[in-house]
């Protein structure tokens, strides 16, 4: 039993240490040459969550994984992919969690419906006030 655990730990640990010791990918800390493309990449990176950090986007983080993701985003933008395609690709890889921009789905609809209800409620309160004469 113990050797199994040890083996598992080893298997899990190996890629992690590899990731930490590898040099950062070239586009992790450098920008794209084309300002328009860089602007696209920047906007996208600000809406992607750094999975290793706490409440930071990949554009705000020193974590190696955030660096790798920045590299991915920039190379894909440079290759002509659209920000939405890259977001889709990252979501298919890491799940909805990676995107700070919640998409309307069977789990997230209340996030969009509730503000609408609040808006209607606020409107009704104000309308009623308006009708009522002092």
């Amino acid at each position, binding site marked *: 039993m113990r050797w199994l655990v040890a083996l598992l730990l080893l298997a899990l640990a190996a890629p992690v240490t590899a990731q930490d010791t590898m*040099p*950062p990918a070239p586009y992790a*800390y*450098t*920008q794209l040459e084309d300002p328009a493309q860089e602007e696209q990449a*920047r906007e996208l990176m*600000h*809406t992607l*969550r750094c999975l290793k*950090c*706490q*409440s*930071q*986007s990949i*554009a*705000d*983080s*020193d974590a190696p994984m955030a660096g790798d993701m920045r590299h991915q985003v920039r190379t894909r933008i440079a290759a002509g992919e659209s920000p939405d395609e890259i977001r889709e690709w990252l979501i298919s890889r890491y*799940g*909805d*969690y*990676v*995107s*700070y*921009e*919640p998409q309307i789905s069977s*789990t*997230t609809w*209340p*996030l969009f419906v*509730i*503000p609408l209800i*609040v*808006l209607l409620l*606020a409107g009704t*309160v*104000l309308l009623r*006030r*308006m009708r*009522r*004469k*002092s």
Partner: protein
Amino acid sequence: MIAEIGLAALWLSAALAVLQLVGGFFGARDETNELRALVRPAAVLQAVLCVISFLCLVWVFYVTDLSVKLVANNSHSMKPLAFKLSGAWANHEGSMLLWITVMAAAGGLIAFIERRLPERAMMATLGTQAFVGIGFYLFILLASNPFERLSPVPADGNGLNPLLQDMGVSFHPPTLYIGYVGLSVAFSFALGALLTRNVTPEFARVMRPWVLGAWIFLTIGIAAGSYWAYYELGWGGWWFWDPVENASLMPWLAATALLHSASVLAARDALRTWTIMLGVVAFSMSMVGTFLVRSGILTSVHAFAVDPERGSFILALLALYIGGALVVFAMRASTIAEGQRFSITSREGALVVNNVALSAILGIVLLGTLYPLLTEAFDVRVSVGPPYFNPVSAIFLVPMLLVLAVGPLLRWRRDSLARIKWPVIVIVVAILVVLIAAALFAEMSILPLLGIALAAGVGIASFMPLRGRSLRRTPLAIWGMCIAHFGVAVSLFGMAADSAFQQERLVAANVGDTIEIGPWEATLQSISPVAGPNWTAMQADMFYSYEGGPLMEGHPQARSFWAPPGETSEVALITRWNGQLYAAVGNMAEDGRWQLRLWWKPFVTWIWYGGLLIALGGVIALVGRVVSDLRRREAEARGEARPYPDEVEYADYDEVRSIAGPEEAKS
């Protein structure tokens, strides 16, 4: 020994809270009950004992008494003194002790000072304050004792998270906590008024300075926290919609709404139930925030406590206090008579819009913060971040800011927009001119564009209430309002300008390289190792010049701490009136070049200047209120009746003006 004194003082305080609750209960039912006499002394003594207890904790951190478990876990003998002291509250147990100390101090203060309310209402208020206090005493004494001893005594402590070893953090949590917990007074006043059926303008006048005080601290705390994140995290972001930030924003939103609705109640005897509700909600948001941060339910930059046992304890307290308050509210709300009526185009009407919008934003922040936690319970992980919060809160923020510009110009009770036609035209023209100019000449996305235009409108409008007044005789509260509203405009402008115009340069630089960024040139002169008391760092010596002007120095560092191990980025900030240059240094790449991150952030500092102006407006208004209350008290002592300043300032003044005013005479 010192730790034991601290613990004993805390137990005694808890016992006094029980006494205060019993006395308050009987005193609120029957004004002649003798137990009533216990309440005020118990509250004051409790405050003194809690302060003693807290000082004991600071002392054991000061001398690094490693036999105290909390010190061993969070401090280190090599740590600089300032951070040894701030370590006392930069952890779960210490921060909860700070919480109860502030709460006891607030309760002691109202017991000592406040004599304007009917005695029964006051007893109910102090009883409620004690009732809430008891829960937190139990939580500290049973589940998070800060004075627990450790045996054997370790050779040295574990140190403090390097991110927290910063002067900003020494100052930020106590400020926020005074704000959070200061709102407990509003909660107690609201329940006291509700229980004894005393929801009157007098109640609002008594509660208002306390809310204002707490709100000032919250404002400063949030601004300081934002600035801390900005310079300490090293990537130039100043607001992340992080759950911990939201936890401090929510009580602020509720307290802001409460301040405005309390003004309506004080001056016009309207919005009675609503003000009570906000009093309950404001402190409830403080408790929800504490629950989020302290229960470990979040994993975020600020949340260092992970302990489900404590989480369920706080959750039980939350359910008891918020649920209990809402039950009392539901039972008693129908007994509150409807207040004075008013038309929508009136000062009250504008304040209702403000309240509805602030509450809606509060609801959205609450939803966006709690929703991911809810889905996580069902094993679905979603992230809610800036792309959600920014536009959705803007839906309510934009109309609120428009009303903010015009509302203070309206009269109480009933007014017409035709009367203030010219100021409104000036404001609208200012907004439109800036909107069109910015849309034509600068490439901006929609939110910063609206932000800049509204900042212009609100900025111009904020001092319009002074128009036609003798500046020397204008009450301080009006000045405070104008300055706070101007602060909103300044802050908004900073946010919009930074979002729209910031420039970013991420480069790998050799020593000697010059990097151009916006109007700046930055030269990397050299890179050298430096050492501090508990860290080492690589320091980049850099020179910066604005539009070819004189050279300025700034030394960003990449620091490595060893106890506990961790890395932080010490950024260099070159501040001008029109913005900040932000420089950070990263690691060395394989080829020997250094990663540099540079941002030119136009007007970014205005965000925090605006925050300070908002707080300053609060301070001025508070001084004005307190001074006029004191004068009134003196006048009463001399046997003269003196009307409340509210009535003179707004209602009567406006009435007098409207009778004499030419516009009204015509109609």
